């Protein structure tokens, strides 16, 4: 029951709607925040949390709806304005000056000077120390930020954020890179802030944290607000249900494909402290999904498997043979293909055109000896152009003119060209329109029909349920549990991913 009494609330966002070309990001979302309240904001990837926060911070423009802070209507046209109104957002990517000290980072936008314009280090260090001690942290203001752990850096960010009277602090997935001890520290800081009258919007997918620290919870799903409860009035199952519960009628229908023998096996793979004892196997014709929330290590896993990062220990077997994949070239040799998470920076070369991208993995076959045969190149490119239904004027179109979906198809074509057998796809349908998504699922299926295997990292549970044969859930760099897709549910998967 949302009370419409404005002046009691610190923050109120009413009927917020936001559209991006072709995509509805937020649909009529309203919520409020009381003074000294910690509000948890939950939702899957793409549910709308980031967009909502960016509107609050002034990074995105408000399309429809209103924002009230302390009863006053506000319109923010830049982040600076929201900061002036007491809104502070701490993002995932910490923007710090690593080579400088903690104090200097905290006062970056407002160096303490005396009347003559001389920097007063003593005062700055002192004040920084005060702020830090207030937060309960023992970090020295004279320590260099690069020497701090991630937890330490985050505390510095918090200190920076609250230095000038913050009323509303938004923390976006603050614990994804923290150790347990750091998380405890963070809780203490948050409680202290609360007692000082600061309100906090706490975005996290870690449900145990929500129960630990928040007073109330708001759940977003598919751009709408689907639930709002006092934390003490709900439980894990209910929250999970709110996050994922949806009508699954409109789904991609899978074909049944015969599976072959084990084609890819990983045993006890470790990578620094980010991946621990990863073991699994994949059979011919299988589509195996990897599901994990932020910080779970799914993307890192694929990077390591493809040789972009060097594993610390463990063994990988391709078709029964042990292989040492230290460089993508080796992975390529072992008939692996990789569709990276960052399409624009790592998947496709925007400075080249479609056919140049497609043939970039297989130059060896495009002509004899040293020569590049343009005719062969054209025919190969046209082949995939047609088969994958790439929508572009021609194979000579510059890659940057293509839509996201078609760019992704070009990336897939790259590896089809190389006749890969083991495809690693890192969130291949992220940010792509529905039509292209379906096409990519079809492509994946066809690959499997021909005996290939597809490993796919996905953040979208409906996608996982409709496309994959098996699901491997990861959390904190480990595999938590494996499922046979048709025997599990969105809620069960989410439960284990957030356990």
């Amino acid at each position, binding site marked *: 029951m949302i009370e419409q009494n404005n002046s009691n609330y610190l923050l109120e966002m009413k009927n917020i709607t936001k559209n991006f070309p072709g995509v509805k990001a937020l649909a009529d979302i309203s919520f409020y925040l009381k003074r000294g309240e910690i509000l948890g904001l939950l939702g899957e990837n793409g549910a709308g949390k980031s967009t909502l926060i960016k509107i609050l911070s002034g990074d995105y423009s408000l399309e429809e709806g209103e924002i009230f802070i302390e009863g006053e209507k506000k319109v923010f046209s830049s982040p600076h304005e929201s900061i002036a109104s007491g809104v502070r957002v701490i993002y995932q990517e910490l923007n710090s000056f690593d080579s400088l000290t903690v104090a200097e980072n905290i006062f970056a936008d407002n160096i303490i000077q005396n009347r003559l314009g001389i920097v007063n280090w003593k005062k700055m260090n002192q004040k920084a120390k005060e702020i830090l001690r207030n937060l309960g942290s023992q970090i020295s203001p004279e320590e260099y930020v690069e020497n701090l752990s991630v937890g330490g850096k985050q505390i510095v960010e918090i200190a920076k954020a609250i230095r000038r009277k913050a009323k509303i602090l938004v923390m976006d997935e603050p614990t994804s890179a923290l150790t347990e001890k750091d998380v405890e520290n963070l809780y203490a800081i948050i409680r202290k802030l609360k007692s000082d009258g600061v309100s906090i919007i706490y975005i996290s997918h870690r449900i145990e944290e929500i129960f630990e620290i928040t007073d109330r919870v708001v759940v977003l799903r598919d751009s709408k607000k689907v639930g709002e409860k006092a934390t003490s009035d709900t439980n894990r199952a209910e929250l999970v249900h709110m996050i994922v519960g949806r009508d699954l009628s409109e789904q991609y229908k899978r074909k049944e494909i015969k599976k072959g023998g084990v084609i890819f096996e990983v045993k006890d793979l470790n990578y620094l402290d980010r991946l621990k004892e990863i073991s699994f196997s994949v059979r011919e014709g299988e589509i195996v999904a990897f599901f994990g929330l932020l910080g779970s290590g799914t993307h890192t896993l694929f990077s390591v498997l493809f040789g972009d990062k060097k594993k610390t220990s463990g063994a990988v077997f391709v078709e029964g043979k042990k292989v040492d994949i230290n460089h993508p070239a080796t992975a390529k040799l072992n008939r692996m293909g990789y569709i990276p998470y960052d399409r624009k920076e790592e998947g496709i070369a925007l400075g080249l055109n479609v056919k140049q991208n497609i043939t970039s993995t297989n130059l060896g076959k495009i002509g004899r000896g040293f020569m*590049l045969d343009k005719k062969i190149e054209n025919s190969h490119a046209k082949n995939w152009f047609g088969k994958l239904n790439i929508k572009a004027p021609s194979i000579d179109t510059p890659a940057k003119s293509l839509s996201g979906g078609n760019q992704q198809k070009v990336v897939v074509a790259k590896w089809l060209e190389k006749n890969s057998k083991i495809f690693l796809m890192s969130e291949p349908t992220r940010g792509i329109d529905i039509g292209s998504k379906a096409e990519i699922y079809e492509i994946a299926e066809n690959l499997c029909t021909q005996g290939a295997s597809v490993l796919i990292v996905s953040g979208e549970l409906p996608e996982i349920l409709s496309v994959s044969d098996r699901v491997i859930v990861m959390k904190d760099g480990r595999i938590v549990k494996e499922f046979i897709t048709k025997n599990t549910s969105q809620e069960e998967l989410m439960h284990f991913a957030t356990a």
Partner: protein
Amino acid sequence: MDGKSLRKSSFKLTDTLILFIALIVLVVIFSAIRVEFFSYDNISTMLKNMVITGILALGLTPLMIARGLDISFGASISFTGVLMAYLYNLGFGLPYCLILGVVAAVLVGFINGLLIEKFDLIPIILTLGMMSILSALGLVISEGHSLSMLTDQLYYFATKTFLKIPIALFILIVFIIIFWFILTFTKVGRTIYIIGANPKVATLSGIKVQKVRILLYTFMGLVAGVASIVMVAMTGVGNPLAGAKMSLPVLSAVVLGGISLAGGAGSVWGTIIGVLIVSVIFNGLSVINVPSYFIQVFQGLALILIVSLYEVRNQRAARR
């Protein structure tokens, strides 16, 4: 989203076209001030002098497309020239001297590439350091003098013409053809462009970017070696200071021709026109009796002007 594709390719064509027009304009201006500029003798001299700059600029082209950089080639030329002359004066046969010189240059290029790629060093600084080492070595071997190296074969090479074209120019033409061929028609050339477009994508496509770049640095060494032979042939000496002032004109030529320090795109034709422009400026100003030390002012101005134009154009394109 589709109409833009055509505009981009004509953009590139316009680039080269504009440069070409600039070149013509310069030639016209100089010829107007001094008719002798456009004489057979003068053009011939200019083209001959262009050979070394041209070879070096061509060598830099694939390297810079792949986002590498080397400014030690001038010192490499000096050092190699001195080395060859020194060995020749010790009595070694001409072929041996030339081959050893080239091998030395290739080795230097290889070391450059190895250090830069394996240790992730900033190319301009590493090659700057290498430049001073080579320069010093050249001075040490030659004890500060120019060492003479006059042979009939080299003399022939430097002075004779074939079909009225100086022989040295043929070398440049051969180079142009080779580089154009490699970059446009071979797999290696395509690989270079892919690396230039996005090194990360190239790596993830299975290309061993480090290895390719080391190869390009080594190749640049080879190019410097060849240029050194041409220089020794033309001047008759191994001069430890010969290459010192080469970095600016060559780098200017390449940058003028459209290859930015950030790498990515570029073509042999752009580079050649860049070389032509730089050479015309140098030669033209000499003909109108501008003292040689002052010519660099114009080269510097031309460099800054044209790169400014590129920048302004890029910024406008980005805003669209």
